[in-house]
């Protein structure tokens, strides 16, 4: 159990050759002791590289890794006491499940009676009791992944556990069960965990804090709710949520002496809190709004100027709700809105949309504008 800190980590593959690629670029990140964290990002953003740097499988080109304040950058993985669960289950299939779980302890010279106790504890926690003496090659990838997890957390001195897209091989139907057991194990041992994935749903359900990476940079490290409500830039706005935030290119105009977003002939109010931050001379601005925050009305609101007329291009039923793809009239700006499953609307129909100012994010040069 420990606090993990990476300081100004940079990693370059094939340095000095034509294939030189910067995988991780000056990343700072601190994982609190006992916290569940996720590292989320599109494929190739450097998340696995960062993970391997933390576990010690990779030496960073620059920067430091600290465990509980102690610099471990030059220590091999075996001395860091960090466990790692890989993308596909890594199992020693010449040993049974018990042998697999006991392997790290036996390598460390733990006496057999202690090993038995510890294996029992892990087997109870992960519900592996029935298969302790089975050969792992006869078990499915789900159970094997649990065995790999058990092997990671079996050492009492494990300071952190890292997961590298551990659900890749797991059948969708079983993901929920496996994820629950992983989460339970993390909470039971209050072990610092870092879960790498490109699946935001997995990241948000597992972790209290999510770090989002893009092109080797750490973009935002916050709770799931903050990421959803207050993305620092348009990338996160669009990346988090399904469908992502609507991002509408806009201009800035003064309306009643306060800045408004201008899209074609339509004017949209933004939160009062940020009025002072917006400069009327700005170009390259966007407003962002979650499809679930868009208010939809079928009847003409007449006098209410907050509503903007639009046409429905597409209606998609997504289980418990529908997603409307609409086009603001007299523009080619597309807005997605989320409505209840029993909302009656047809493609081609006219509707009116309203964007409540408090739910509208304002972005200048792709960065969110926040109240000071």
């Amino acid at each position, binding site marked *: 159990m420990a606090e993990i800190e990476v300081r100004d980590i940079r990693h370059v593959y094939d340095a000095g050759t034509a294939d030189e690629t910067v995988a991780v670029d000056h990343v700072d990140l601190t994982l609190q002791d006992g916290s569940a964290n996720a590292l989320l990002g599109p494929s190739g953003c450097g998340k696995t590289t960062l993970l*391997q740097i933390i*576990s010690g*499988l990779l030496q960073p080109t620059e920067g430091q890794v600290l465990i509980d304040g102690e610099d471990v950058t030059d220590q*091999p*993985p*075996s001395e860091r006491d*960090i*466990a*790692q669960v*890989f*993308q*596909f289950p*890594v199992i*020693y*299939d*010449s*040993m*049974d499940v*018990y*042998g*697999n779980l*006991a*392997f*790290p302890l*036996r*390598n*460390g010279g733990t006496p*057999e009676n202690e090993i038995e106790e510890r294996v029992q504890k892990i087997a109870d926690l992960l519900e592996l009791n029935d298969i302790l*003496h*089975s*050969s*792992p*090659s*006869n078990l499915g990838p789900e159970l094997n992944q649990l065995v*790999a997890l058990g*092997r*990671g957390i079996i050492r009492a001195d494990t300071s952190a556990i890292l997961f590298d897209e551990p659900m890749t091989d797991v059948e969708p139907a079983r993901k929920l069960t496996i994820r629950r057991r992983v989460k339970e194990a993390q909470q039971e041992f209050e072990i610092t965990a870092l879960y790498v994935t490109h699946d935001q749903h997995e990241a948000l359900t597992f972790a209290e804090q999510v770090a989002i990476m893009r092109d080797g940079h750490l973009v935002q490290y916050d709770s799931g709710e903050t990421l959803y409500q207050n993305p620092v830039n348009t990338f996160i706005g669009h990346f988090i949520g399904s469908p992502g935030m609507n991002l509408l290119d806009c201009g800035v105009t003064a309306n009643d002496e306060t800045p408004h977003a201008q899209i074609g002939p339509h004017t949209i109010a933004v939160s009062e809190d940020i009025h002072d931050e917006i400069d009327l001379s700005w170009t390259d601005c966007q407003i962002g709004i979650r499809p679930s925050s868009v208010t939809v009305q079928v009847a003409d609101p007449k006098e209410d100027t907050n509503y903007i007329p639009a046409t429905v291009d597409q209606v998609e039923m997504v289980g418990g709700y529908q997603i409307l793809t609409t086009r603001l009239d007299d523009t080619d700006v597309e807005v997605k809105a989320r409505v209840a499953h029993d909302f009656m609307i047809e493609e081609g129909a006219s509707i009116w949309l309203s964007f409540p100012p408090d739910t509208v994010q304002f972005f200048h040069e792709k960065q969110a504008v926040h109240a000071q």
Partner: protein
Amino acid sequence: MKQRPWLFLLPALLLVSISAFIPLMTVMNYSQLTLLPGTEPYFAGLENFIAVLEDEGFRGALQRQIVFSFLVLITEIPLGLGLALCMPKEGPGVGLSLVLLGIPLLIPWNVVGIIWRVFTRSDIGVLPAAFDWFGYSYSVSSNTFDAWWTVLAMDIWHWTPLVVLICYAGIQAIPDEYYMAAKIDRASPWKTFRYVTLPNLRGVLIIAVLLRLMDSFKIYAEPFVLTGGGPGSSTTFLSTYTSRMAIGGFQMGRGAATSLIYFFIVILISFVIYIIMLNLGQGAGGDQ
């Protein structure tokens, strides 16, 4: 159209029947007949088989064959695996090592025999001259021990590269994650070999062992060229014995019976080894 799959299989079945089934049936037929030049063949039933099994020459050849194949396996497999582990995993060294290893495999069997025959000739050979230096009188034609280890060395020289190539391909196919996990689990180099490399090579090792077993059981050209099966019959192996029986001794019926017994022994031993290797150390409790 339930017959359609068979239609697609037809070319393969046809080829197999021409290359394997028909010759095998012919041998089956011969093995039950007494065939001597100039006489009508007549039915002998199991007589040929009994005669072969009771023949001292056959038993001797079989014993030598088993010892030889055993020695081939216990040298070539560990040596091949060891060399494969030492080979570079990437870089310019890979191509160079693969080419060097491939050279012996490209040489035909009888040419290998001739190369070694030149090596071992008492008048111009390098080996006798070298041993002479140390005061050892080396001769493949008169010393049984020399003949044996020379045939063995020849086989090792010729075929260990095959084992290396098979193992090397197997090692390259082991995902890096296994080694990463072993590092994290604090496994020693020996334990990493024992629990990661070796189990992951099970499949390719089975192939290597079976190939070398069957091939070494069929060894013919090399001892034939080098020693002619001698001194005495000390390097007469099963194939040499069979061909002598059939062609040299004009006893086609007995030759055919020998072939069938020979065939059956190879299949039996291969099967037993295959089953043993398949189950070896599968899912056991691990070292305490």
